[in-house]
């Protein structure tokens, strides 16, 4: 990426000396269609990185023309190139340090005037420029006729009309890039600042003797920026004591100008640019559709109608839910067998299982595959979800949602644009906090952005659902849909309240920004754009599975295993197993097949064969597939297969019976060992040590262990519970039944379950999400806060619910109703109070205006 140019960027390039490879910057305002132009130029050949030291995405890609490789860097979409926002500063830094050979400026033809302000800034920076006049189709629809030649002549740069979404103008743009890089620069438009010119010339003269300043930046640009009061440029000048003198007397000059002209320097600069833009517009654009309602406006009249708007919004969320969560789950029926197959392959590759104890490599390997599979199982859901969200974004409706909901969100310290992160995080049911937190990038208001980052994890991510389903199916069977409604909405209330609390306390002093948002025209989304975004976000999720979750699963596994059982207990279990094996042999003593099983290794192989078969059968559907599967297994080992399906062979039948008994006994023993191992393991001991505290919330050590391991990754909670609740389990009983059976004896009630679910809803983000918090806030402090705060909140809430419920003898479902009512009421009161408080009528602008006193 680093590129050396010996010549200053604004000097003409010698014609004969052809530079083969070019670096091209792609700049433009938000919603001008920069991404589509970028896709059009580079195709699939692109990658994303970060600009050094900041969290701003740096998208780059490349293509080849007949002379060499063209590397294109997509600059962040900003409305201007001042130094007020991070993106703007990043763009400017890139331009001045990397010095692209050509800059492509994407303009939105349908709102040319505004786009021109940006173009002026680029021209002043002195880079060889090509203008891509995008969205020509929209402009035409709106009745705008743009004279491209005249525009090109006025600006002094080449202007290529394009329709990025349809790939129109692609070759012309590529050609123009090459030509602009090779041609010596002609006369480009220089914005005349009339009355300010003497001041600019004066400053320019002061700046010019300092090569440290003018090496990278044109002197005129520096002078204008200084007059404008650009903070980064001022800092640049003040940093070097030898140049600091340039600034002397600047304030006086500015004040003098203001008293003379009745207009501040900054306002005067704007007025000149405005005048020039108006002139160019008049010259080049013929607006026959002025005053006519555009298609977007017609749609908005319906979609943003006060009555219809909420209906459309609810319908949209409902469709997203139906298509992604409901249909997505149906799809997983087809994808799950693939994952099961992967597991089977892994199981085959790993060392074989022992009679009682498996080799460590095997159990760890399978544990990792299982952890990954649970998460990969959600991939179809996420693909659909992310594709639908990309459609919302690209079509322009997402901005409308922000517009509709901003007042609600703003009352709680959030922002209209918090909608997208919340939907990704799983507002109702199903989502993932990782892409949710990532999507907070787009929120311009730092305070709201922080509040959003810290509250997105409260949403019900997909991995919380299995635990809810498990507990609801045991303890709240008759109220199933009510409890699910409770769980999916309570988190929204809590998130809003927490956001309000945080913005009123710890985030109080954060920078806020105004809600100034463009409502872009509606566009039909392109398949390429949507597919790309959906795959990109899903890929982030898969990477999370591949890296963090797998690494953490190793730790959890280790902490659940060590230090392991004492010799005495080991010995006990071995004895038990030996007895069972002896019984097996005594039963088949006079059997003709005994010879095949005389050695223990053969026996173990047979049991494993039997288990593999059972496992495999579980994953086959339909009689035909089952038959085919049987054939396959039979081919693998016809001798053993006879014992699984003895048919009419009496002797084999006998073995089959004994084998089944032995396998079942072995399974029970292995489960007992596992449970006992967890009991004495590190995590188990921590769980027990926490009991004195968590007992107020009704959690016993088993629940503690499950919750601890779920911090690693939510989905492992159910897996851990599965291991822990298994006394006397034989294969036919589900985890629901086992937990149900234990709860009868252990006194576990719906109130307990409610406390667990509440805690789980408020529990800190999983490790992957906290790492994303670190990435997005760029601070370990906030990452730790994002762990500690929800833990405390969850524990206090769960304890209150459990202790009060128990003391007053309130049932789980009643307690749930009370809690829900309380939270909903608080939300309502807080929301009303803060929206009243922020009434704009109270706004007074006297503060800070000395002359108004």
């Amino acid at each position, binding site marked *: 990426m680093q590129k050396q140019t010996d010549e200053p960027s604004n000097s003409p390039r010698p014609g004969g000396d052809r530079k083969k490879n070019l670096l091209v910057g792609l700049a433009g*305002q938000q919603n001008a269609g920069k991404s589509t132009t970028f896709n059009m130029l580079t195709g699939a050949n692109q990658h994303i990185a970060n600009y050094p030291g900041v969290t701003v995405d740096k998208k780059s890609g490349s293509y080849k023309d007949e002379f060499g490789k063209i590397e294109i860097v997509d600059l962040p979409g900003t*409305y*201007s190139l*001042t130094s*007020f*926002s991070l993106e703007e500063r990043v763009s400017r830094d890139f331009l001045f340090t990397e010095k692209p050979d050509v800059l492509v400026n994407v303009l939105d033809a*349908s*709102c040319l*005037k*505004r786009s021109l*302000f*940006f173009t002026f800034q680029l021209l002043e920076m002195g880079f060889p420029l090509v203008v891509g006049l995008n969205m020509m189709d929209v402009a035409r629809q*709106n009745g705008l006729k743009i004279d491209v030649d005249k525009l090109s002549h006025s600006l002094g740069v080449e202007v290529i009309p394009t329709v990025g979404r349809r790939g129109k103008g692609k070759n012309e743009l590529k050609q123009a890039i090459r030509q602009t890089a090779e041609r010596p620069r002609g006369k480009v438009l220089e914005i005349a600042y009339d009355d300010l010119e003497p001041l600019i010339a004066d400053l320019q003269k002061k700046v010019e003797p300092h090569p440290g300043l003018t090496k990278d930046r044109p002197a005129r640009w520096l002078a204008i920026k200084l007059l404008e*009061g650009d903070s980064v440029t001022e800092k640049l000048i003040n940093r070097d004591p030898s140049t600091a003198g340039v600034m002397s007397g600047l*304030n006086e000059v*500015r*004040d003098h100008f*203001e008293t003379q002209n*009745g*207009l*501040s*320097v*900054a*306002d005067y600069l*704007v*007025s000149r640019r*405005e005048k020039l833009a108006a002139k160019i517009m008049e010259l080049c654009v013929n*607006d026959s559709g002025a005053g006519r309602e555009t298609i*977007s*406006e017609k749609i*908005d009249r319906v979609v*943003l109608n*006060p*009555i219809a*708007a*909420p209906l459309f919004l609810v319908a949209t969320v409902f469709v997203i839910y139906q298509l992604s969560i409901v249909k997505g789950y149906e799809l997983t029926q087809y994808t799950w067998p693939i994952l099961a197959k992967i597991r089977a392959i892994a199981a085959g590759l790993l060392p074989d299982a022992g009679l009682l104890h498996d080799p460590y490599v095997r159990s760890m390997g399978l544990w990792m595959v299982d952890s990954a599979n649970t998460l990969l199982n959600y991939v179809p859901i996420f693909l659909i979800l992310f594709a639908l969200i990309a459609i919302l974004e690209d079509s322009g409706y997402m901005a409308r949602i922000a*517009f*509709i909901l*901003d*007042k*609600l969100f*703003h009352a709680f310290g959030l922002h*209209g644009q918090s909608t997208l992160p919340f939907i990704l995080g799983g507002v109702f049911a199903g989502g993932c906090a990782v892409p949710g937190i990532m999507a907070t990038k787009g929120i311009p208001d730092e305070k709201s952005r922080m509040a959003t980052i810290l509250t997105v994890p409260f949403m019900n991510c997909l991995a919380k659902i299995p635990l809810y389903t498990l507990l609801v199916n045991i303890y709240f069977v008759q109220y199933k849909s009510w409890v699910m409604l409770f769980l999916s909405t309570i988190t929204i209330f809590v998130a809003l309240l927490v956001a309000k609390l945080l913005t009123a306390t710890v985030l109080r002093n954060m920078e806020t*920004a*105004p*809600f*100034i*948002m*463009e*409502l872009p*025209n509606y566009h039909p989304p392109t398949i390429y754009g949507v597919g790309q975004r959906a795959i990109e976000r899903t890929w982030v999720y898969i990477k999370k599975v591949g890296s963090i979750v797998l690494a953490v699963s190793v730790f959890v596994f280790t902490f659940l295993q060590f230090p392991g059982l004492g010799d005495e207990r080991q010995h006990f279990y071995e004895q038990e197993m030996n007895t069972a094996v002896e019984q097996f042999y005594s039963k088949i003593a006079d059997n003709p097949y005994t010879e095949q099983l005389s050695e223990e290794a053969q026996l173990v192989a047979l049991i494993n064969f039997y288990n593999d078969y059972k496992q495999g059968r579980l994953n086959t559907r339909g009689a035909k597939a089952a038959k085919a599967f049987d054939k396959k297994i039979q081919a693998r080992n016809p001798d053993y297969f006879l014992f699984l399906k003895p048919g009419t062979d009496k002797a084999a039948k006998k073995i089959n019976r004994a084998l089944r008994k032995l396998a079942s006994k072995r399974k029970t023993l292995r489960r007992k060992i596992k449970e006992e191992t967890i009991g004495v393991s590190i995590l188990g001991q921590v769980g027990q040590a926490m009991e004195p505290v968590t007992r107020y919330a009704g959690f016993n050590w088993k629940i503690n262990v499950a919750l601890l391991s779920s911090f690693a990754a939510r989905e492992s909670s159910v897996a851990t519970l599965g291991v822990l609740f298994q006394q006397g389990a034989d294969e036919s009983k589900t985890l629901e039944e086992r937990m149900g059976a234990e709860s009868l004896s252990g006194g576990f009630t719906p109130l307990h379950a409610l406390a667990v679910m509440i805690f789980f809803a408020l529990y800190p983000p999983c490790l992957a999400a906290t790492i994303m918090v670190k990435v997005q806030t760029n601070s370990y402090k906030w990452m730790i806060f994002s762990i500690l705060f929800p833990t405390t909140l969850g524990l206090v809430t769960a304890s209150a619910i459990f202790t009060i419920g128990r003391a007053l003898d309130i049932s789980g479902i009643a307690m749930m109703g009370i809690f829900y009512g309380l939270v909903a009421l608080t939300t309502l009161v807080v929301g009303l109070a803060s929206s009243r408080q*922020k009434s*704009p009528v109270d*706004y007074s*602008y*006297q503060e800070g*205006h*000395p*002359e*108004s006193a």
Partner: protein
Amino acid sequence: MKNRRQMGRGKKGRCRCRMLNEVRPGEKVCIRCHHACGAIRQRLLDLGFVPAARVDVIRRAPLGDPIQLKVNNYNVTLRKSEAAQIEIEAA
């Protein structure tokens, strides 16, 4: 103090000048000057809210805030609290 020069000028103390947040949907007005400063002001200028620009107030959001405006042929939304810092006059 640093931002003083970036502030809009031309307002007269506690005058009852009309602000953009007071305009009803359907009205067309002209921008006179900005009372905001710094980033807000810059952003408004970038989006075309320059002095003398014509602004159509299109509608309020269903909950009453923010408001949707049309300036230079495109649609922008502002919260009322921001609109309250833009001084306007009849078009």
